[in-house]
């Protein structure tokens, strides 16, 4: 049965891209939305089946089918579905967007299922470049952001190619998991250099400081649904790539990357949280928030244990939904010209559901039970304590504490005063927010199924 999963995924993906491209001509947008959603649903179901079956194999010679890859295929297809809804409503040129999304999704799924460094390199390229164009699609005012992303992405990708090139002499196959089996190579300077360049390049998309300086500008300057895509999916893809490179290829150098990532995580958390304190634009605030969250996610890798990876995976999944849900609301309000924290005054009485949902997302982002964000943070913190990194954990706890202030500012602003003029959100926003809210609350109260999946994925990816 396992090989069929590969075929189904490949087929569905092909159809997804193909129909997306066709849409540019036939312009039947609603139909296209249904088709793309159905295909993504098929992908998700297949992936779910793959996780349930729990087996590992290689499909078509290039795709790893195992709980790890399937879990991320599931996550990406679901998140893409959500972003797709947002874009349908708010994109000026939905057909073109969908075409670009098709290409980007190939990159995403390729990385989720990659079994070679080349796949990762191509996947990152395939994902980032169309994203830059997606930003540009919506009008002139977005061009600046797109160019910024494009220039910086070009640099990151070149660094990534260089890193891959450095590995080549040691392992011409460039397959994932082959260096790890060769313990003799640890400590080779060239490989350490390659490792650091991998971290640098992937940190660009994963938004670790100081490779993330572009994020606030681009997130704020991009249309909301692309921001959701960037924060909810692209960043997660980079983390997946990071897992694959660090755990499968560079595992003998765990000592190096553990300390490097520790430094990056600390800087990222502080950078994100402290600068977020002084933001007035909610979208920008969420950009910094998502930087800080990337710092937390990194904590799981720092411990280099299966349990830590499980925690990171859990948090990645949960954060995708939190941030897509949040950006959906931000996007909707932006379309009503509500941008700054003071603009959010009275949202609680204008649209109670949106305010409630945003409150829950923020509570979850702070990491307060009973939300999924708490479980994620709890798993992450325990993973670092588990390996005795008490100081790091305390720093993370302090950062959680700092973050309370800026989230609370937004929450309090929403409920600050009564404003009787009701605002209705569109059905797609409501649907997306509802799904995200359900995920955040349900997995906050009953996290065990998701933890089990993350655990299975971590077992699949973790060597030894």
């Amino acid at each position, binding site marked *: 049965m396992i090989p069929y999963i590969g075929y189904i995924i490949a087929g569905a993906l092909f159809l997804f891209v193909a129909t997306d491209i066709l849409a540019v001509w036939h312009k039947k947008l609603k139909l296209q939305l249904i088709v793309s959603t159905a295909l993504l649903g098929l992908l998700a179901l297949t992936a779910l089946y793959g996780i349930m079956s729990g087996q590992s194999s290689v499909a078509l010679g290039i795709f790893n089918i195992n709980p790890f890859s399937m879990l991320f295929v599931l996550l990406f297809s679901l998140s893409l579905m959500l972003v797709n809804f947002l874009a349908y409503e708010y994109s000026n040129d939905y057909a073109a967007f969908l075409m670009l999304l098709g290409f980007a999704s190939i990159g995403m799924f390729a990385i989720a299922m990659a079994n070679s460094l080349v796949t990762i390199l191509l996947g990152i390229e395939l994902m980032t470049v169309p994203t830059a164009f997606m930003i540009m699609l919506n009008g002139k005012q977005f061009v600046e952001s797109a160019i910024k992303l494009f220039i910086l992405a070009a640099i990151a990708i070149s660094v990534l190619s260089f890193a891959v090139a450095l590995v080549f002499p040691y392992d011409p196959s460039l397959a994932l998991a082959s260096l790890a089996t060769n313990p003799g190579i640890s400590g080779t300077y060239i490989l350490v250099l390659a490792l650091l360049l991998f971290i640098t390049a992937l940190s660009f998309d994963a938004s670790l400081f100081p490779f993330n300086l572009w994020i606030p500008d681009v997130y704020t300057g991009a249309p909301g649904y692309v921001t959701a895509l960037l924060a909810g999916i692209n960043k997660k893809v980079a983390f997946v790539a990071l897992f694959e490179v660090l755990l499968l290829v560079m595992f003998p150098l765990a000592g190096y990357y553990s300390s490097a990532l520790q430094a990056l995580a600390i800087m990222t958390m502080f950078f994100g949280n402290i600068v977020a304190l002084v933001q007035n634009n909610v979208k920008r605030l969420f950009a910094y928030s998502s930087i800080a969250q990337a710092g937390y996610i990194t904590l799981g890798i720092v411990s280099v244990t299966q349990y830590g990876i499980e925690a990171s995976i859990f948090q990645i999944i949960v954060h995708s939904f939190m941030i897509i849900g949040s950006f959906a609301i931000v996007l909707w309000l932006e379309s009503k010209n509500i941008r700054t924290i003071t603009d959010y005054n009275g949202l609680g009485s204008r649209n109670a559901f949106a305010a409630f949902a945003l409150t829950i997302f923020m*509570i979850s982002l*702070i990491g*307060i*039970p*009973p939300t999924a964000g*708490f*479980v994620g943070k*709890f798993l992450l*913190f*325990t993973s670092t*304590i*588990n390996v005795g990194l*008490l100081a790091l*954990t*305390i720093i993370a*706890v302090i950062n*959680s*504490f700092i973050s*309370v*202030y800026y989230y*609370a*500012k937004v929450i*309090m602003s929403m*409920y*600050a005063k009564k404003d009787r003029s009701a605002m209705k959100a569109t059905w797609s926003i409501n649907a997306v927010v509802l799904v995200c809210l359900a995920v955040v609350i349900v997995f906050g109260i*009953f*996290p*065990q199924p998701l*933890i089990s999946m993350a*655990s299975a994925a971590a077992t699949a990816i973790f060597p030894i």
Partner: protein
Amino acid sequence: MIPYLGIMLASLLLGIIGVLLVNERHSRVVGSVFSGITMLLAFAVLVSGIQSGSLNFSENYIYYISQFNVSLNLQLTPISLALVLMASVVAFVTVFAGNPEHEREKTASALILLFEFAAIGLFASGNLLLFFIFWDIGVLALFFMIYLLGSANRRRAAIKFLIYELLASLLLLFAIMLVYFYTPMHSFDINYIIANSVTMSSSTQTLIFAFLFVAFLINMPVFPLHLWLPDAHTEASTQGSMLLSGVLTKFGGYGMLLAFALIPAAANFSLFVALLGGFSAFYAAFVLMTQHDIKRVIAYTTIVEMSIILVGIATLNPFGTAGATFAMLAHGFAISMLFLVAGSIGHIFADRDFRAVKGVIASSAATGYTFLIGVFATTGVPLTAAFIGDVLIFLGAIRAFSAMGVIPLLSLGIVGAYLYYVMNKSVFSTREVSKTIEYIGSSQKLGYAILLFFIFLFGLLPFLILNFFNL
């Protein structure tokens, strides 16, 4: 055996749903009904405990995170029984009597039930992770109570409250994670940890205790981490204040008892903790003397009383522990009654500065006399529940710290003297009669009556609770 605790929690959750479903006008009634059911169940627990002579309430529900072997595990110790009783009564009175203005009753009722849910869950949880989760739910519920229902400057007070409380909660989280990883079998189970925490190295124990200590110190609150409380009270609605001082501060007190039980090495610090508690009692009593807002005055009495409770906890002997528990029970009733009174005074005169409020007794005799009895119940007059608590605490303190242990009792003298001053200026005074703006309803009077009943019930029959303690 009837799973009382589970039914209580379920009834509260149903109550929240019920409150949200009905309209604004009926929400208070629905909230009162479900909260009342919970209160009756709490007393059913007490009665069945008295009948069987011991507390055998241990309930296990669905798994939360099986990886950590965490399930919804509820149990009752004598301490938690006392606090559950108190919380259910205070929440019940709060929901039906605390809002004479009838403002945003739906929001208020739902949040009160949510807070009650958290409080009962916290006091009854047999598991540190659950303890933490209920803690945070309670803090959030109260944050929204302060922010959504508070007065003009609530913004600053609410964020201050949230920041202090979440600092406490994060320290707590860190501490319980440490506990988990340093116990031999990796467990959050309170009973297991108490039995096995000796195996931790003393430096680890010290570290864990330091975090727990600071977290609970913030919540109790005790000098120097008490600053959030007066501000929160000034801005919170009457209902918020009742729950804040009545129940939320007991989270910290209960946690502190738990911390000393969990960490054997904490005994090394008992003298320091007692000194801090003693100092804090006097300090807060002095700051109290500078306050003019009746609610702030009452807020500082909370700090004094919680500091004295801290002294009781630090004695580490059965007397101090039972005394601290009893004092928390007594304080919950008394302080929520005082805040109910302060709320009524604010409602009657639209002012809470005791220098401006004149002749409470003439405007509402029930309010005036309840205030007076509240003062008695705060200063530990015999036959009120506070007396039992104070007596036991200081008997324990004398045993633990020699005759010096009794000194913090003097702080109650300062508190009493100032409270009588407040009475003199506001309640028993008609020199310049201030204008009565509103009258209070019968639900407030019933609220007074219920709380008075419990103050005297436990003051007259302390053995209802004390028999469960191994003194």
